[in-house]
């Protein structure tokens, strides 16, 4: 196991109970990096994908994801245990993403291309049906990527937290330090923009 961990072996991908998470948080607040890395294992996929959907670039998403976890570990003592840890992490990550986006020139390419996503190897397997499915997936990712690019950074943050992280409006408002009414307004106006890009009257629906 990596040098960051000592003692207990972490089983990647397994869900932690609320009690386990609380124990790790308490140990992290005492400065134990190994305990915090248990939390990293639990939440790194969610945080990485949050960053990826907001930034549209895998390298940048990885960078911001690492920064977010480092910031979380440094400030873990400020975390109030009556709040949800996931909401607190999303707050840190989304604010870092927003800072990056607002510094970025608007012309910078926003892409959710499969190559930058680093999809599982099954996508690279051959076979006519799989090839067709790959093409369809790639086209869908491009459509969604272009549609998300039409949104402002603030709108994108709300959409990503609501659609992909399934946060409540109140939690999103807390994470982005904005009023709930503002968050709802941004979300519903974003849906109208996305509807014009992605909406279709498919018989499958």
């Amino acid at each position: 196991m990596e040098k960051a961990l000592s003692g207990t072996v972490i089983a990647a991908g397994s869900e932690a109970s609320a009690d386990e998470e609380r124990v790790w948080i308490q140990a992290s607040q005492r400065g134990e990096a190994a305990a915090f890395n248990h939390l990293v294992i639990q939440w790194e996929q969610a945080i990485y994908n949050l960053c990826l959907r907001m930034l549209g670039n895998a390298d940048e998403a990885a960078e911001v994801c690492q920064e977010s976890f480092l910031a979380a570990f440094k400030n873990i003592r400020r975390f109030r245990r009556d709040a949800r840890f996931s909401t607190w992490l999303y707050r840190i990550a989304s604010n870092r993403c927003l800072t990056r986006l607002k510094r970025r020139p608007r012309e910078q390419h926003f892409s959710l291309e499969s190559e930058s996503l680093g999809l599982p190897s099954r996508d690279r397997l051959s076979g006519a049906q799989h090839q067709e499915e790959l093409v369809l997936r790639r086209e869908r990712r491009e459509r969604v990527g272009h549609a998300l690019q039409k949104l402002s950074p603030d709108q994108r943050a709300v959409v990503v937290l609501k659609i992909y992280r399934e946060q409540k409006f109140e939690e999103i408002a807390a994470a982005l330090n904005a009023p709930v009414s503002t968050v709802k307004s941004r979300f519903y106006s974003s849906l109208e923009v996305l509807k014009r890009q992605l909406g279709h009257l498919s018989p499958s629906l």
Partner: protein
Amino acid sequence: MNAECKKYREQIAKGLFEDLEPAQTEAVEAHLRHCSDCAEQRILLLSTLSELRSLEEAPPPRHFYVYEDRGRSAFWNLFRQTSLLWRAVAGATLAVLLLLGGAAASNLQMRVDEGVVTLGFGKLSTQPEINPEQLKAEVLRAAQNQLLESRGEWMAQVRQEISQSEIALTQKQQDRLKLALDRMEGRFNDRIADEGAILEAKLNDSAVHIYRTLSRERQEQLALLNDRIDLLSVKGRIQGSQTEALMATVLQMADLRTGAR
């Protein structure tokens, strides 16, 4: 799109996210049952959400572990692990020790002079010595001159009024009056001089006595202050060398207390 549709169009998305009151939800559903345009909009929204949600989660390219800073001393780690209250106590103790040590190292001097506290580094410059006798003599001389001047003005005024008087006086009477006024003026001057001498004699001893008493007390106080500062300086040097051990003890006590909870 009519006004009714416009109203419900805004609520269709809210209904999909359970952001409506039950009564509002029923009203929207009822409208969608007989309005094909709005029903179509709902389908477009649903397809949009479906497209968005079809985006797969990407696995992270690596783990995002954090590492402990092994360069930090055990003392610092212990410090970080204690509660805020104990860290504040430790910080305040360190600040006081540093202040005392700094004051001792910089040879801070303090002097109290007539209620005014003067601080400085190294030897403070002394104020010039005041000669009390000379000062007293000058004050008495000034008072005497002022008295002479005011008496002189009074005598001049008296003479003037007499000369302007309508009473007809013979030459002999005028001479006698002038002589009387001269004698009166002379007696005034002698009296002022005598009173000045008496006052000077009385003040002489008391002023010097007071000055000497104050001077002696001030020197005693300064000596006492210097002794205390020297003592603090020595203590500060000793305690400065034991600072980390003291801080470590305080923090370990805090750790034991927090661990005991």
